[in-house]
């Protein structure tokens, strides 16, 4: 028997309240049918005695206290899962929107997922080559990692994410790659940009897309990453794919959470975001990883735009505390025309230390990346000094640092969108750049490593004699 409650007791924002209900459980799904036959979906967010409050995913536009009939399904929100998801496009709540019809489910699963037992986790160790020097060399992406891109409005984070998708490959070719793409509150153009990119890369058949555009309801936006990650977990841990999840834009997601929280009348904490934003984000990001005895992996690359380029804003701040590092894009470098505009110093990959070096990439990799970080940070000191006393007044060694910094940005960080560098190319380039500095300045590596790789004057082969700036291509 299908039981429906006729009418509502209250309406507010995207929330509806019903009085006199029985046997309604917390987090249960409901179907709301309007007089004209339109069907909407909702979820129970509070029960108190015989009163239930629901959030309506599609919004409450057109609902009155009298024209709606509510049916409780008796189970939490779940989505259909199948290997046929690959190549399909879904809306933010996991319903197909590509006109190819419903999915025949192999399984249905709760979109909230469950926490992976730390004992069952496999510690991620094998790296994913992206062909981008700044990432491979200095903040290596590891399979099973969550590594966000911190960007700002107008910077080239989408291009970077697309390049990662195009070029990503693993050292040992075991298992297939699949991509889960979750768009949350992005512009139509951005969604189209990614779709076209997947198509050009010939990857469309390996991609599952979940689309919640900027104009779509915010409640669905809260579901979008959960649907996407449920799909990713299924592909990875049940079907054995290595899944790369791109989630953009986490800022829109967090703002949706804030909007929803304030409509519930919750006490706001920093910048109006609810106090549970950390736990909420963690429930998404922590779904990356690998499980012992299961073949696949879930690697996350969430993209977020820092409001006003402020890295201390709650969204990047909380994200950075949960994720295993971050790739930070820099406005100044973007203005200078450097692509990808990755700011090396604040960027970090926490899992890198265990996935590079001997037996993984190349023996000298940890030393080179450490030294590049240390030397590049001295470039910043030299630059700030030069801006006060002028370049001419600098000591010889500081001048060397300026030269190194310029070459490093122009040749190492800067690279073409189609340029796919191997790890050897990246590291050799690093050594050549380090040779601009005298040996005594290399204080992060042992004398043996320096002897083995440092070639005096090696940088001359890569620097253009006319302009030390270079054009982003290797000579």
């Amino acid at each position, binding site marked *: 028997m299908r039981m429906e409650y006729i009418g509502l007791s209250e309406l507010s924002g995207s929330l509806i309240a019903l009085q006199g209900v029985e046997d309604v459980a917390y987090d249960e799904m409901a179907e709301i049918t309007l007089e004209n036959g339109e069907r909407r979906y909702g979820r129970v967010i509070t029960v108190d005695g015989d009163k239930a409050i629901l959030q309506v995913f599609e919004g409450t536009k057109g609902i009155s206290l009298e024209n709606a009939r509510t049916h409780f399904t008796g189970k939490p929100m779940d989505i259909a899962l199948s290997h046929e998801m690959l190549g399909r496009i879904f809306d933010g709540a996991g319903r197909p929107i590509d006109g190819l019809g419903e999915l025949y489910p192999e399984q249905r699963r709760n979109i909230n997922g469950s926490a992976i037992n*730390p004992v069952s986790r496999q510690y991620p160790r094998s790296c994913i080559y992206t062909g981008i020097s700044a990432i491979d060399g200095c903040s290596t992406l590891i399979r099973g990692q969550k590594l966000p891109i911190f960007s700002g409005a107008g910077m080239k984070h989408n291009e970077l994410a697309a390049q990662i998708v195009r070029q990503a490959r693993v050292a040992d070719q075991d298992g297939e790659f699949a991509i889960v793409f979750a768009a949350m509150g992005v512009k139509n153009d951005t969604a189209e940009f990614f779709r076209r990119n997947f198509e050009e890369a010939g990857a469309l058949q390996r991609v599952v897309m979940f689309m919640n555009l900027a104009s779509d309801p915010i409640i669905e936006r809260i579901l979008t990453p959960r649907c996407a990650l449920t799909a990713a977990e299924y592909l990875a841990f049940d079907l054995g794919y290595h899944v790369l999840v791109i989630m953009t834009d986490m800022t829109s997601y967090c703002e949706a959470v804030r909007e929803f929280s304030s409509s519930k009348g919750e006490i706001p904490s920093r910048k109006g975001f609810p106090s549970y934003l950390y736990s909420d984000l963690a429930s998404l990001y922590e779904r990356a990883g690998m499980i012992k005895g299961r073949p696949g992996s879930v690697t996350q690359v969430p993209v977020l735009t820092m409001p006003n380029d402020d890295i201390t804003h*709650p969204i990047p701040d909380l994200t*950075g505390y949960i994720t295993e590092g971050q790739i930070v894009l820099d406005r100044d470098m973007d203005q200078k025309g450097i692509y990808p505009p990755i700011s090396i110093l604040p960027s970090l990959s926490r899992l890198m230390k265990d996935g590079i070096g001997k037996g993984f990439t190349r023996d000298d990799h940890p030393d080179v990346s450490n030294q590049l970080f240390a030397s590049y940070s001295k470039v910043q000191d030299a630059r700030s000094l030069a801006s006060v006393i002028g370049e001419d007044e*600098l000591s010889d060694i500081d001048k060397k640092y300026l030269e190194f910094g310029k070459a490093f940005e122009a040749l190492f960080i800067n690279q073409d969108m189609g340029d796919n560098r191997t790890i050897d190319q990246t590291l050799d380039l690093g050594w050549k750049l380090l040779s601009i500095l005298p040996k005594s300045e290399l204080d992060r590596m042992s004398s043996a490593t320096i002897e083995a790789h440092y070639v005096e004057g090696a940088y001359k082969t890569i620097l253009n004699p006319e302009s030390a700036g270079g054009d982003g291509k290797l000579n």
Partner: protein
Amino acid sequence: MSQYVIKGVNGPVVTVVGGQGLAMMDMVHVGNEGLIGEVVGVSGGVTTVQVYEDTAGLAPGQPVTTTGAPMSVKLGPGLLSNIFDGIARPLNVIQEKAGPFITRGINISALDEEKLWDATVTVKVGDTIRPGTQYAYCQETSLIQHRCLAPAGVEGKVTRALPSGSYNVNQVLVEVTDLYGKVHKLCLSQDCRIRTPRPMAERLPISRPLITGQRIIDTLFPIGKGGAAAIPGPFGAGKTMTQHQLAKWSDADIIVYLGCGERGNEMTQALEEFSELLDPKSHQPLMNRTILIANTSNMPVAAREASVYTGMTIAEYYRDMGYHVALMADSTSRWAEALREISGRLEEMPAEEGFPAYLASRLAEFYERAGYVKTLEGKEGSVTVIGAVSPQGGDFSEPVTQNTKRYVRTFWGLDRALAYARHFPSINWLTSYSEYTTDLKPWYDANVGTDFVPCRNKIANLLQEEASLMEIVKLIGADVLPEDQKLVIETAKLIRVGFLQQNSYNAIDTYVPLEKQLKMMQVILRLYNGAKTLIARSIPLSQLKATGIFETLAKIKYEVTNDQMEKFADYEKQVDEALDKVDKANR
């Protein structure tokens, strides 16, 4: 049939009706699946319960049963080298029962109840037992002997005692009859409330350092056994790395490592690494002295709130056996945020930044459970607490950092700029402090050498001097400074690179004994003092730099292993030769 039923559900907060018999902080089982919860509020006929597991599917009308006692954990042999969630359920048993994903409603004891331990019973019928009397012991791991002590409230004559033998943790070994004729049954395990500090005889002054093998900590900002320290820092500054280093190398007998609201992969890493690494003293796997508590950020928030008390109670339990325990809590900010989240759901009035007004008192309660004590049994034991703090936006003025600062005496402030330059550990020597330096001076004098504290002070002074000189250098460059100031800058650079920076991935550098730390300071200061005499004769510093002696000393940390102290004589010779050479060239 239970008289109590659920009335309403809002996230982890559940309201219960059906009577007034539920007491504050009682542990309850909620709903058809029996989810674990705790009473946090009673008002009129409605009781408020916070539930430690996901509440989806709970509905009004489902039953609630009470255990009639406050939240407690079962303590006994089998805790060591194990990993638990925030309410002390063993994660490997959960894995066996539920697979790789944690499901709800699993009620299991912290201890393996089947396993037999070779227990030696140390009392006989007729003996008098008081709280703290040892009645049995067993070898828990190759490193730790587990001693069973009579809990508080048990006092009387032994009326029954089993012979020594193999028993499980629930077997009653000893029966004690008190003055009123009540019989107390003692077994290898005991239940212990987590929110009440375990009793002790008295607190003792802090007089011994916790030796960590980390140079900047041991020399500049030491922590005493039984002390409390905070490590605040923005993300990426290396809080977890520092905590891991301390857990691996500090000279405590037992480490309780508490991952509170942090990353799952980090706990996996700790579990793997600690199983592989050997303790430098005993050459046994570190896991044999470690207890991990993992309540990762995506596990239920209420259990995160409880996890710090679980960790502290376990630490105190081993302290009472006469061990020195170090508790690493990573991160206390996540705990504070859990308090905030639950407080918000309870609709309490928020104070600063949305945190509840009782934040400061909760932090104080927690840190005050650290201490160097005389146990009820009369032995000495300690709990040292090292709490990581994750300030929002890396801003140390936020409430958790500020309130924590009031209750700890060692403060290791991590610095974003140092981390960006990959200077690790990124402890900023200008903002950090330790109030234990004077308390510990006698110990250093007696055990390391009377030269240790003066060297330490000199090094600290040079770093301070450098900091003020750098203000000038930032404006006009280093070239215009007088030679003696250049020497300060050059020496401070050597201290920073060659002494303060410590590479945790380098087999030699990851752990450095105090003796070597002292030698390193001495050789650096030998160079400094010698150079000072040369410069007083207006010999330019560049001549000395050209000898390469600064670079040589900077690499000592990689070249001299911990058992090659004789090599320092060689370095001293090199310093003298370099000084001599410059001296001769200017005669």
